[in-house]
């Protein structure tokens, strides 16, 4: 189809030049250049968004110009990123692209592999003179890819969409070094705290483990051997709570979201029942809770894949309000000694953020005081899977401390001893338990020193120095800013106040 008027032109140019279809060529030029130019003009005049609600992240900003960044090639690269990140109608174009993507083939048995968009860096290297190095247009991704965490790139971010369920494949390729390291980390806490603190550990299997029929089992690796391996490596004084069997028994129930990577509160409830057995507690029957529901939840895996099957099969988030009275306090990042009254359920959460109904998202620390009087105090160390588990504990402990291993800033061993905490629960999903950076975070918690955050001082002479705090500590604030999950920085409020005022950056429904 390329310039298919060649021959004809040659022929006609000799014979009947006046018949030449000028209009067709003019139309071609006008439409194509016009389209590009129109996008160009719009990209200059339209207001530039700073946040993508849909992707839950801040968009790239126009970089500040400096000779140093220009000569390092950073400036132009960042302008490129800014330009494509804030391109006119970007979200519409992205969803159009994903619609096209689904037309590339057929789904066998409703199963589709969604390529996480992660392109290989090696293929770029393989084309040294075809693509200018470092100019590869696929390299704009700055997602916190899990490949950088020492897990040797085994996490391919593969997602399988099967019968309206998005499933992330698990795979460690028989490499148990992360599992060893995870167990050793938990054991180190026992060594540090001694027998005065009872330690429990839960590794949560994920959706893919229970969702696939026999013939598709080979696209993921079984999780049970990995969990059993971790539990086998735990110190005998550490109790590994087996929740696998109960989840497996209830696999036909709504234990996991279909469009999000988390488990549901129902899944967490079954885990809680097993935990109670291990901790010598009597679980509260599900019927004693007040059930509430957030409808129309399209979660993270939908955001990632934009798959139409998922769009047509949205989740709902059930949450169970305990009948026991309690008072919860949250501690924000960089204010580890300042409690703010909060609720365990952020009722305002909706839409793509519905999972944030549990604990209001990922906060460094939440302390819950209850009316229970039994001398038991528990601290749980969790990533986001723990959020929907935590509220069940208020029925059984005087105090429950919920620590997010990613954002907590105090030394945990000291913290436990100073607060007279006598039980410690580690709860991680199996991906986290096999990811180097998560394990490292748990290990770092033990004796870390809190360094108060000092905003970088603007000095005209010295250019962009790193802020005094470690960079990777910052995602929480970024995430919160985009999600409205974290409360904005405000004055401490009287402890009786409702939590929702913290979230005034969130649109109320």
């Amino acid at each position: 189809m390329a310039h298919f008027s060649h021959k004809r032109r040659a022929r006609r140019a000799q014979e009947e030049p006046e018949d030449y279809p000028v209009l067709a060529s003019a139309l071609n030029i006008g439409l194509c250049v016009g389209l590009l130019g129109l996008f160009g003009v719009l990209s200059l005049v339209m207001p530039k968004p700073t946040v993508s609600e849909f992707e839950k992240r801040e968009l790239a900003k126009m970089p500040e110009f400096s000779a140093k960044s220009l000569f390092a090639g950073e400036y132009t690269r960042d302008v490129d990123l800014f330009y494509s990140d804030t391109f006119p109608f970007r979200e519409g174009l992205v969803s159009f692209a994903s619609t096209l993507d689904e037309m590339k083939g057929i789904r066998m048995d409703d199963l589709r592999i969604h390529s996480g968009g992660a392109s290989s860096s090696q293929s770029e290297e393989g084309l040294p003179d075809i693509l200018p190095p470092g100019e590869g247009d696929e390299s704009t991704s700055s997602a916190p890819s899990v490949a950088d965490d020492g897990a040797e790139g085994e996490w391919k971010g593969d997602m399988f969409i099967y019968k309206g369920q998005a499933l992330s494949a698990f795979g460690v390729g028989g490499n148990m070094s992360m599992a060893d390291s995870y167990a050793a980390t938990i054991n180190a806490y026992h060594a540090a705290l001694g027998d005065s603190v009872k330690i429990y550990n839960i590794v949560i299997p994920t959706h893919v483990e229970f969702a696939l029929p026999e013939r598709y089992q080979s696209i993921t690796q079984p999780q049970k051997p990995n969990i059993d391996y971790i539990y086998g490596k735990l110190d005998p004084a550490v109790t590994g709570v087996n929740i696998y069997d109960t989840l497996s028994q209830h696999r036909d129930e709504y234990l996991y979201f279909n469009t999000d990577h988390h488990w549901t509160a129902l899944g967490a409830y079954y885990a809680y029942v097993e935990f109670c057995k291990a901790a010598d507690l009597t679980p509260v029957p599900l019927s004693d809770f007040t059930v509430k529901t957030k409808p129309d939840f399209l979660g993270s895996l939908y955001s990632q894949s934009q798959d139409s099957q998922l769009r047509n099969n949205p989740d709902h988030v059930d949450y169970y309000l305990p009948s026991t009275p309690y008072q919860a306090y949250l501690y924000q990042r960089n204010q580890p000694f300042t409690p703010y009254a909060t609720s365990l359920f952020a009722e305002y959460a909706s839409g793509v953020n519905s999972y944030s109904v549990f604990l209001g998202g990922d906060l460094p620390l939440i302390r819950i005081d209850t009316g229970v009087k039994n001398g038991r105090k528990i601290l749980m160390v969790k990533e986001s899977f723990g959020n929907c588990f935590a509220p069940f504990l208020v029925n059984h402990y005087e105090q429950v401390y919920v620590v997010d291993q990613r954002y907590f800033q105090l030394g945990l061993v000291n913290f436990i001893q100073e607060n007279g905490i006598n039980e410690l629960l580690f709860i991680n999903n199996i991906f986290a338990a096999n990811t180097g950076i998560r394990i490292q975070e748990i290990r770092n918690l033990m004796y870390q020193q809190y360094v108060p955050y000092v905003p970088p001082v603007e000095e005209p002479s010295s250019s962009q120095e790193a802020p005094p705090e470690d960079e990777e500590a910052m995602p929480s604030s970024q995430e919160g800013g985009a999600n409205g999950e974290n409360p904005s920085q405000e004055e401490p409020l009287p402890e009786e106040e409702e939590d929702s005022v913290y979230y005034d950056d969130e649109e109320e429904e």
Partner: protein
Amino acid sequence: MVFANLFFLCLFFPLNLAFYYSSRSLTYRNAVLVAFSLFFYAWGEPVWITLLLFSAAIDYFHGLYAEKYRGTPKAKRAVISSLVLNLGLLGIFKYSGFLVSTINSLLGLSLPVPGFSLPIGISFYTFQTISYVIDVYRGEVKAQRSFGKFLLFVSCYHQLVAGPIVRYSQVAAEIEDRKVTIHDFSDGLTRFCLGLSKKVIVANYAGSLVGRFMDGDLSTLSVAGAWYGIILFALQIYFDFSGYSDMAIGLGRMFGFHYAENFNYPYISTSATEFWRRWHMSLGGFFRDYLYIPLGGSRHGAARTYINTFIVWFATGLWHGASWNFVLWGLFYGFLIMIEKAFLLRALDRLPAVFSHLYFLVVMLTGWVFFYFTDMSRVWAYLGVMFGLSGNPLGDVSTRLLFFNNIFWFLLAIAFCLPLVRWFKRYFSRLESRKQDILLYVQPVMNVILLIVCIAQLAGQSYNPFLYFRF
């Protein structure tokens, strides 16, 4: 900057056209092109643009000198000096790290390995300027007296970063005077849209799938997965490279330049020999005219022919990258071409054509394995899987799923390796002119659709949901 990029497509390119066509003065237009080209280059290489200017200046003066003293030993010295300087720059920036680490590993030394970053396009523009000085020396072209016009030849952004390798003789007349008709422009635009689509719709997507097979754990890769992976890589590299060439040729036509074709449906070849007449033709032509023939070609007996062939293919491989796997890849083709010449082509000719095609496809895919992995141990491991020597399973569920999930795209990509466009043109030229006119009006619609699809895909590349949930 690259072509398949929103900033280029929606700002740089329209602005370049607007400035260029705002005056009829050739001097002005040349100045606009040079200014935009330098900006284009500096966008990706804010530092090494100095090198480009330096290289252009060197060869500008060498050209003048070689012309002035043409036919005397001084002219020859000019050529040698130009070669030393150009290849020296290439050697320092592209090959010094490779050379030192090779010496280190051979002699057990630990000399510091220089870590120059490769300036974009240096392999292309040094070859262009080398050909210029040699052509002037040979009396095939007149030296360019205006440095501005010479800089236009060297820096023109159409082919600066990814070829084709344009020789000065091809564009000498057009630098002095060129006309663009509305039909030229329209044809160039269509060519550009097709090239962009090849890059964005096929090459980029194939590239996103390749790593799943080729960068993973080779011990669990299935045989079918290995073949599918290398076929995807073959598609990626062809559509990427030829897409860039199409865009360059298309851009050239919009500004009045006619660059030579660089690809001629290489995957329909029946032998390695034929492949290299169809693949990256401007590079093959360069090595033929400036290396193989000056070495004596095939006119000095069998032994010299083999040596010359070896040198050419060593150089061809090395040109593609500073690593031994590229050298091996080049020698692999040199070897094949020698045995094809010796007896294989005659043998294949006696068989039905399907065998020749099969033979070619297998060796071509094998070649890409060398090309892909810089780590030789992975080359052998991957070939082992492909040819069933590793005892890996024949197939696996996820390859099957991925194949069917992308089957329409895949078949379309394969189809466009065939001369579909050429067949269509032939069909078109036989139509009566009323039908031709209708199809000519379909062309803009097709282009607009392709552009929108490409823009959507490019916007999607920065789509990057914040994966906080991965903990």
